């Protein structure tokens, strides 16, 4: 069961210091042999800023297609952060796993962050312990994007890349039409994660967000009403180990894809 929530765009000076991060390919529907730019974006409500390729930040950056796993190549310091060459027909899964970044948040901002990302368990734990201060959060990114060359069959769907926190589309979104149901599974350390807030945002109307809590199998069903680019995201937070130099460790999973407009054969983001 997913719900539709309307929000206003928050792009203010009181912006949080930890934002969504997603992969935005130059096109979700490349032609055979096409070189596709793989852009990394950090922002809010799909309004993002480019993150250039940073070797210090990249833990894994690769693409999986029918032939196997290949690195996403690129020049350090450049935006777009990488490029892929689409050779074999099918669904390509682009994955970006970042190294952790440390952010120090004031009490107000940390509480706002917990509320926005639906991290109720952490908020409840802090309340029980009487923790009202700010916090140091060691966050990292687990971003994926689905790029389809040709029209793949439903069998050539998304797959698990083994990221710590990962969203896996259980149906090939590129074969879907607007208004259809997309089951998405959230895993943490390859196990289903229950009770997490999963949010879907469409590029054409980012103010309307779909959200749902994952069930005991880590699954949510998102009825995506529009064509175009979608971002599905979830955040999971755990207590930091004593040696981490932080209070909390958070993982930010994202999955971007496109639901094609059936009236046109090919579209771009």
């Amino acid at each position, binding site marked *: 069961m997913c719900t539709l929530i309307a929000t206003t*765009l928050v*792009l*203010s*000076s*009181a*912006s949080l*210091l930890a*934002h969504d*991060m997603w992969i935005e390919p*130059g096109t979700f529907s490349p032609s055979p042999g096409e*070189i596709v*730019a793989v852009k990394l*974006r*950090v*922002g*809010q*409500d*799909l*309004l*993002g*800023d*480019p*993150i*250039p390729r*940073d070797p*210090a*930040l990249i833990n894994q950056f690769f693409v999986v297609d029918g032939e196997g796993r290949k690195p996403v190549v690129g*020049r*350090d*310091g*450049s*935006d*777009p952060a990488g*490029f892929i060459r689409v050779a074999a027909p099918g669904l390509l899964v682009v994955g970006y796993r*970042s*190294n*952790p*970044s*440390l952010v120090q948040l004031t009490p107000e901002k940390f509480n706002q962050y917990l509320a926005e990302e639906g991290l109720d368990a952490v908020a409840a734990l802090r309340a029980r312990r009487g923790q009202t201060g700010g916090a140091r959060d*060691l966050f990292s990114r687990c971003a994926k994007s689905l790029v389809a060359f040709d029209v793949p069959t439903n069998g050539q769907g998304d797959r698990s890349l083994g990221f710590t926190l990962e969203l896996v589309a259980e149906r090939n979104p590129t074969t879907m039409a607007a208004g259809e149901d997309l089951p998405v599974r959230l895993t943490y350390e390859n196990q289903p994660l229950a009770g997490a807030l999963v949010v879907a945002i469409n*590029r*054409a*109307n*980012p103010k309307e967000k779909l959200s749902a809590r994952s069930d005991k199998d880590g699954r949510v069903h998102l009825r995506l009403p529009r064509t*175009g*680019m979608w971002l599905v995201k979830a955040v999971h937070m755990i207590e930091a180990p004593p040696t981490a*130099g932080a209070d909390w460790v958070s993982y930010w999973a994202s999955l971007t894809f496109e639901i094609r407009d059936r009236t046109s054969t090919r*579209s*771009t*983001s």
Partner: protein
Amino acid sequence: MKNLGRAIACVIAAVVASSPVATAHEIGTTRVLARFEDGRYAIEITTDASSLMEKLDSVAGSPMDATTARTDAVTMEKRLVTRDDAFRQRVTVAFDGTETRPETHYAVSPASDALSPVIATIRLTGEMPRGASHFTWSYSWTFASYALSVTNGGAAATTEWLEGGQASAPIPLTDSAPAISRTTVAWRYLLLGFTHIIPHGLDHMLFVLGLFLLSGRLRTVLAQVSAFTVAHSITLGLSIYGLISVPSAVVEPLIAVSIAYVALENLLLSELKPWRIALVFAFGLLHGLGFAGALRELGLPRAEFMTALLTFNAGVEAGQLAVIGAAFAIVGWHCRSQSWYRQRIVVPASLVIACTALYWTVERIAPEVSALGSWL
């Protein structure tokens, strides 16, 4: 675009190297460079044009346009200009806590190739409030970390890392020249030139007195002072414009030698020789280099460079004439025709000047001599 990429790679490397923890920051492609000079500020923002445009459209309530990323530079520039009011709402330029409204100029340069981003450069310019002591900046059109580099006057740039929307710490502006009028600049540098002779330039005062002592007639005094003035104006100008450069370690001892020479000549000769004016001209060239060193230390306002240079030189001239005027007032014109003038005035005064100048010569060649002197 390759240069931008290399610059960003260097910035990333610098931040990573300076980070105290083994984590990395998500640094975007936005850069901000603020310059403060001659009472004006110029702030240059370079950023990804399409992501800025998308945010501006969004805030304005326009639907997200999937084609924004592929818009050409000229169209993008025109669209940015139409969003000027919205852009200003999330940019703060403040002096001493009071916001100021800058002039804005938008430029969008085409991408170097189809896969590269289009970059926008936004310049914010204006006059700093008189007496402004601190500058504060915030920019809320980026979610990523970015560098704010500040250049104050001729000083080296300092860089502060900011998150999108974060206000900078108040940045002191005390080193920069405040907004001042040409008249104020002229008066200030005239005084600086004058005080460089009286009371700070004892060496130059003794040199001018040396010229005065041996000149029996007012015309010869003025001829020597004029030759000296023309000469030092030449080297002062050439040196300030960077056309010649002589280290002060060379200039300063030679200035002392020139004073000693004039004084010794006063002792050895009883009347002016024809070469004296040529020598005075040569010494003037030398003293001009010394004035240039002093003026460089004082600093010249870029906007009123020529005004400051000319009035400083005029101030030096006024100082020299004041020395001669004072000497005439003390000694009196009448005394100069008396038989005892040479024995009682010229010789003892020249002896004192020569000894002082010789001491300075040694002192300026070997600073340890003065250190020894103070210890004794």
